[in-house]
Every structure is written in C-alpha cells, then in structure tokens.
C-alpha cells in the first residue's frame, strides 16, 4: 500500500552546547519519510535525540542543517496542524478539564463556532463528569488524555507525542494505548510516538524507528506487519520484541539503555 508522504526529513543535523561547553551531536544525518495516516514510533535509549527529532517536526526547535518538509513545505515554527503532547503533564493548571480542551480552539480564535466539539472530545476520551475539575484533581492518565484531546480538537494532520505514557502505571498505560489506537482509527491522523517502551512501540505502530546515541542517528527502521489488534503474548510479537531489544543493545553498546520491560 503506497501512501502520500507527509514528512520528509533530509540530512538533518542538530548540535547542542552542553553545560561543560562541549558540543553534543543530538542528531546526525537524519533521513526519514513519514507517510500520511501512519502510526510510527521512535524508540531508543536516552540521549539518542528522539525528543529533539520530535521537537523539530513540531517546529519547537530548529535544525542546524538539512530540511524538514511537511507536504513539500518547510516547517516554520509550531502550528496547530501538528498537535504535540508533552512528556509531563502540560495542562494549564488554572483551567478546568473542559477549558483546557477548549483552549485548543480558543488559542486559534475559533472557539465560538466549534463550541460543541469540546463535549464531544470529553466523551471521546471518556472523561464525562470531570468537566469542571482542575488538572491537579485528576490522575496522570486522565491528564494525558486531556492533553491528547486538546491537541486533537484542532484536527491536526499529525499528532506528535513525546513519551506521553512514560509516567503512567502499567494498567493505565495499556488502557491509554487502546484509546490511542481507537482515536487513530477514527480520525485518520498521522501518529508519531516517541517512547522507550518496546512493547508500546510494537503494540501500536506500523513502523518502528530505532535510534542510537552519540551521535543521535537512526540505526534501523522496522516494518511491523503483525495484524491489529495485536496480542502482546503471541509468539510473533515476542520474537519481534526480542529482536528489537537486541538491536537496541547493539545500538547502545557503550552505554546500558534505560528501558525496562
């Protein structure tokens, strides 16, 4: 199945100067095409530049060299067409759940004509009855669902997620993964997920991008052809997980990776 290309990443480099005044190559010669409607995961040990890559796609950061094209156009700054979900809870603490979701519309100044969508998205993420609560009164999993709804209400072509489930417990995580698949099917949004959880990447994605650190580069792109919904305990799934784990070990020979199974 060939699909239209959404993101075209060509020879992208990004270096940082760290606190010791030495330069760190966060990304080196990154080349990747992401197709429209695809669910793609970026996985790798910490320091491999996966968050940096995601931030470049969002327009929250700028590369030193190379180009990133979105449907043929260069990315200039953040845009609601590329929704972004942050690692830690990023809800506005002074707004209720309902108003946090509405802030997606309000920020663009289109709240009045799309008001009724807010309650639709609250229903979609299963938070009915929590409309008037404040972020500190709900659980971490609920907060991340709100953050996802807030990004989705702008109908983005792509949803970029930076370890959105990193801080959640196993049950909540599995729950939210299913919710994510559901939302993906309904909205036909391109999903780009940064994670350090091999299971999560395998469970959700069409393709898994494996990155390695120092300098951050793509070491392999895997097609995951297992039919959905996937069984985490199936032999194919386990075999694939083991092979990815092995590759991650190879990719970070020097340093022990931080992921846990």
């Amino acid at each position, binding site marked *: 199945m060939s699909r239209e290309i959404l993101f075209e990443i060509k020879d992208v480099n990004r270096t940082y100067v760290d606190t010791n005044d030495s330069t760190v190559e966060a990304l080196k010669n990154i080349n990747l095409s992401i197709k429209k409607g695809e669910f793609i995961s970026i996985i790798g040990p910490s320091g491999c530049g996966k968050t940096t890559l995601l931030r470049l796609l969002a327009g929250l950061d700028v590369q030193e060299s190379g180009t990133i094209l979105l449907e043929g156009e260069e990315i200039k*700054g953040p845009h609601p067409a590329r*929704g*972004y979900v*942050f690692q830690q809870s*990023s809800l*506005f603490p002074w707004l209720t759940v309902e108003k946090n979701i509405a*802030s997606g519309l309000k*920020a663009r100044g289109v709240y009045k004509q799309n008001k009724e969508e807010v309650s639709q998205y609250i229903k979609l993420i299963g938070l009915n009855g929590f409309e008037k609560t404040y972020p500190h*009164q709900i659980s971490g999993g609920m907060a991340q669902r709100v953050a996802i709804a807030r990004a989705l209400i702008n109908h983005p072509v792509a949803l970029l997620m930076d370890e959105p489930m990193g801080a959640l417990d196993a049950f909540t995580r599995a729950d939210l993964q299913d919710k994510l698949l559901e939302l993906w099917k309904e909205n036909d949004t391109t999903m780009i997920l940064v994670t350090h959880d091999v299971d999560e990447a395998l469970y959700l994605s069409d393709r898994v991008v494996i990155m390695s650190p120092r300098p951050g580069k793509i070491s392999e792109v895997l097609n995951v052809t297992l039919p959905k919904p996937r069984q985490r305990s199936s032999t194919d799934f386990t075999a694939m997980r083991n092979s990815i784990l092995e590759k991650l070990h190879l990719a970070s020979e020097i340093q022990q990776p931080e992921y846990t199974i």
Partner: protein
Amino acid sequence: MSIIKYIELSAVSVAGFLAAIFVNLFFKQVAEIEINTYPINSSVSLTADQAYRFVLLGLILIYIAAAVYSYRNEERRKKFLSRVPFRFVIGLTVALWDILGTKLLLLPQPFFPGPSRIIESFLMEGDYIFQNTLYSLRLFTVGFTLGVAFGVGTGILIGWFPKVYYWIYPVLKITGVIPAVAWMPFALTLLPTPFWAAVFLIVICAWFPVAFLTAQGIASTPKIHFEVAGTLGAKTPYLVLHVAIPHAMPQIFTGISSANGFAFTTLVMSEMLGQPGGLGYYINASKVWSAYYKVFAAIIVMAVLFSAIMKVIGAIQNRVLRWQRGLVK
C-alpha cells in the same frame, strides 16, 4: 456535639458583653464626670452610657445571629466555637475598662477615655465622622484602583519585554524603596488639588509591590506553557493574556495584598499632612483639641473599614485563584 452544649458555649461567647452592660448599669459612678445627653430626633435622646449599652447589645445580637448561622455547618461551627473564649475575655476587658476609665476615672485623662466616652464622639458628630470616612474611602478607592491597574500594567510590560525590563526595572527598584509620603511636597505643588496629590502618593506606593511581583510572575512562566500554546496555534496576545497573566495571578495577588497595607499607611499619613478631610485629618484635628476620645473613635472606624476592605480583596482573590485550592497549602 449536642445542641445544649452549643447553646451553652454560645451563651459564654456573649456573657462577657452582658457583664459589661451590667457593670455599666449597676456599678456606682464614683468619679464626678458629666454624662451628656444628645438628642437623636425631636422625641428621643440618648446619654453616652445608653448609647454604649446599645452598642454592646448590638454586638451580643450579632454574635447570637452568628451562632445560629454557624450551627448548621460543621466548619463554621468549629470556627465560631474557637472564638468563644476570646470574645468572652474581650467582653470582660471592656467591662474592666468601663470601670477604670469611666466609673472610677483611674486612667490618665484625657489620653485614655472610657468606652462610653468614645461612643460619645459618634453621638456628638457622627455625621462629621461619616463624611470623613467617605472622604478616606473615596481617596483609597481611586488611589488604590489606579495604583493596582498601573502596577499590573507596567509589571506585565517589564515581565514580557526585555527592553522595558532594562529601562524601567531600575527605576522601579529605586522608587520602590522610597516611602511614598516623601513625595508629598512635590505632589502638593504639582497636582491641582490636595485630593489628587494624595491619590498620586497612594498610586506610587501601590504601584511598586504590584508591578514588582507581576513582573516576576510573568517572567517565571514555565516555557512549556508557551510551547503548548504555540502548538495549539496561539499568537502573542493569547500567550500574554491566557498563559502569562493567569500564571502570574497568584503573585499579582500577593503584590495587591502588600500594596493594600502600604496604601492604608500612605492614606492616613497623607491625610494627616495636608488633606481637607478624611480619618487621618479627623485624628489630627481632634488631637489639637486634646479630644483623644475622638482619636480612638477614628481608629475604631479605620480598623473596621480596613478589615472590611481586606475581606473584600481576600474574597476576590479566593474566587480568582480557586484553581489553586488543594494545590497549595
């Protein structure tokens, strides 16, 4: 807690004031002082002692009403009960004060008049005290509102624009440490009326803490909030109005609360230094005639007025910052 016990404790809370009434009624007037009578209208007239007892009765009725109102709510009930011993002792203190200040006249006069003598000021010139209170209130409202508005405005600019920070912040830091009344001579010369001169001083003294803390609140907004808003499609006006300002709100209110205290001080001091009215003016004018009981009357009015203003600001703050409930101590 049983209702009987609650009624008992409520009775204790007013018993002190009741005792004060009895003391005033039945304690022999030993010292020779004149108890003046003042006509209220064509048919009714009151002595200072009667007026004093009416005030005590009023307090008793207020506390009984509070007891009834608080009974139904657990939290309010606790709050009410916690104040029972304090109110009882206050009542007894007033009774003692009445004995020492009026009945036996043992306190040095005219500096420490008895309670009925202070109440007498309201009988003598209640209208005049009321007019002066209104003058103070008007001065405070205009000055404080302008000062807070001005402070929040400059605070936002300082916190948002590095250029404004560079040029205005040092000015803020220097003027902030100067007591506002020091500008009085200039204010009186440069502004058309004494009223606006005092407004100017209150604006200056409220401006500093509000601007300072607003700027701090704006500048300390976590970057992630701006990034979130950016990915949602927000432009600068949204970032300022709906991200930076809400984030700065707790600090803005801290600024407003401390500005409030400074503004009271500046208000009274500037009234004492050159206003045609106001409670500060009234204190000064009464002092000249050694009418210290009037000074006390004005102080009582100030205490009530300023606590009321602080209550109002506190209520607004609770409403605006209700999202913080449960998040901070």
